[in-house]
């Protein structure tokens, strides 16, 4: 798979095949084919938009949940991880080394909703030994993007 194309799309999913063709020297048709192939092979998972919901007063509550689990014979952590990631409330699920096993990012409309999910769905799962919930207070940076308003660096007049 052509990594150059993937990098361009990762940075801006709206870049057209024609633009990508110009930037890489690959023909537009070939670019379209490569992208299709990447989609088929799930190299490209999906195209989405990063939104700063705080700005539209659409407050979301997020929490990072540390989950300690008992690995299962034959399936290791995978089957318990799947039990968790099938819940749509679990936005991100990682297996980690260290003091706990799974890290789950949960979002909901209210703190209650998130707490209910943890206490009623997550914690009682067979194999889950314990959870620690960290509510998120502020997002500074996400996926490489600094969330706070960028102040325009005003170029001053200069001769060069």
């Amino acid at each position, binding site marked *: 798979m052509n990594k150059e194309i993937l990098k*361009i799309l990762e940075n801006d999913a709206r870049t057209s095949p024609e*633009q990508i063709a*110009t930037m890489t020297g690959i023909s537009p048709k070939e670019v379209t084919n490569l992208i299709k192939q990447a989609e088929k092979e799930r190299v490209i998972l999906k195209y989405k938009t990063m939104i700063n919901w705080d700005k539209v007063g659409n407050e979301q509550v997020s929490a990072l949940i540390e989950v300690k689990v008992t690995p299962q014979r034959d399936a290791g952590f995978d089957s318990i991880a799947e039990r968790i990631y099938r819940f749509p409330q679990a936005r991100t699920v990682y297996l980690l080394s260290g003091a706990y096993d799974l890290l789950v990012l949960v979002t909901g409309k209210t703190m209650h909703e998130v707490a209910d999910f943890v206490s009623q769905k997550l914690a009682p799962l067979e194999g889950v030994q314990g959870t620690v919930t960290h509510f998120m207070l502020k997002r500074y940076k996400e996926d490489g993007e600094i969330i706070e308003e960028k102040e325009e*660096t005003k170029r001053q*007049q*200069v001769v060069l």
Partner: protein
Amino acid sequence: MPANPGKYHISQRANQLSPSGIRKFFDLLASIEGVISLGVGEPDFATPWHISEAAIYSLEKGMTMYTSNSGMPELRQELSSHLRNNFSLEYDPASELLITVGVSEALDLAMRALINPGDEVIIPDPCYVAYGSCVILAEGVPVMVPTHQENNFELNAEDVEARITPKTRAILIGYPANPTGAVMSREHLSQIAEVARRHGLMVISDEIYAKLVYGVEHTSVASLPGMKENTVLLGGFSKAYAMTGWRIGYAAAPREIIAAMTKIHQYTMMCVPTMAQYAAIEALKSGEDDVAEMVEDYNRRRLVIVKGLCEIGLSCFEPKGAFYAFPSIKSTGMTSEEFAERLLTEEKVAVVPGSAFGQCGEGYVRCCYATSLAEIEESLSRMKRFIAKYG
């Protein structure tokens, strides 16, 4: 030059300098809202954070004193390794390197250290706006050598040789070039070097864009056989590391020349700001990945703007270095100044008239593509409308 007999008796030295063509233009630009600027020749990236952070740390630790006049020993040591690893150049950090306030200061020092009144300095036309004035300030005489789009704006050795007189002292070149984006091939550069050696001329080589090349290799003049003794190499951090505001650069040259330049530097500048030197050390130690990433990004923009310009009917030779495209606007029948002024007022796109860079720049405009792809595309569509009206 008409001396202006004002109230304060400004010196002839200052009066003889013509105000930069770009300045006039930016005054106009500042008065208009919503302009997309392809005007300013500086990176749109902020300095990589680890570099800024190194400088902040140096301030926190109270490293706020003067440094050695030539620059911090650690910086010169790093620079020496950098020049060896990147351009196969050997310079002694103790005696052959000088840290300067940008290439700007280094240029001035080189001229004042090497040029006597009346000495001639050969310069390609078009060229960076400061070259001619630096020669004039050293009481030298700039001798312009035309370069042309047909030859990819490379300086031709025969053209240089034809302008050599008994007064010629040096050749001042800057490749990759501002404003054209031209790169000198190793072969053509060797021919220039040959002429310089044969006539005993110094080559002052402004290689500030050395790291910004696309699909070609940059050859440093000083790395050519026998040329180290005849070269003053000027380099900087402004462009490659996105550090224009830090004001730091360097000169590398034979010991005797560095000693002469250092004398002038110590009486006029003392030393380069200490925090900028700490930033530069960090840039040299671990800035390579940042540079590579920015170069990759500039390259994409370069391909988009060059193709776009050609498609709207402005023929544009392929610039292989720096971050400028230099399309011909001759098909519009306008002078480059007219073109730039009308494009600015009618379509709010700022480009710099080629005439600001010398007579041979007439008929061209400089478009700096160190700006976001979105802005490049928008400016191209505005220019397309403009060309449709006048082309």
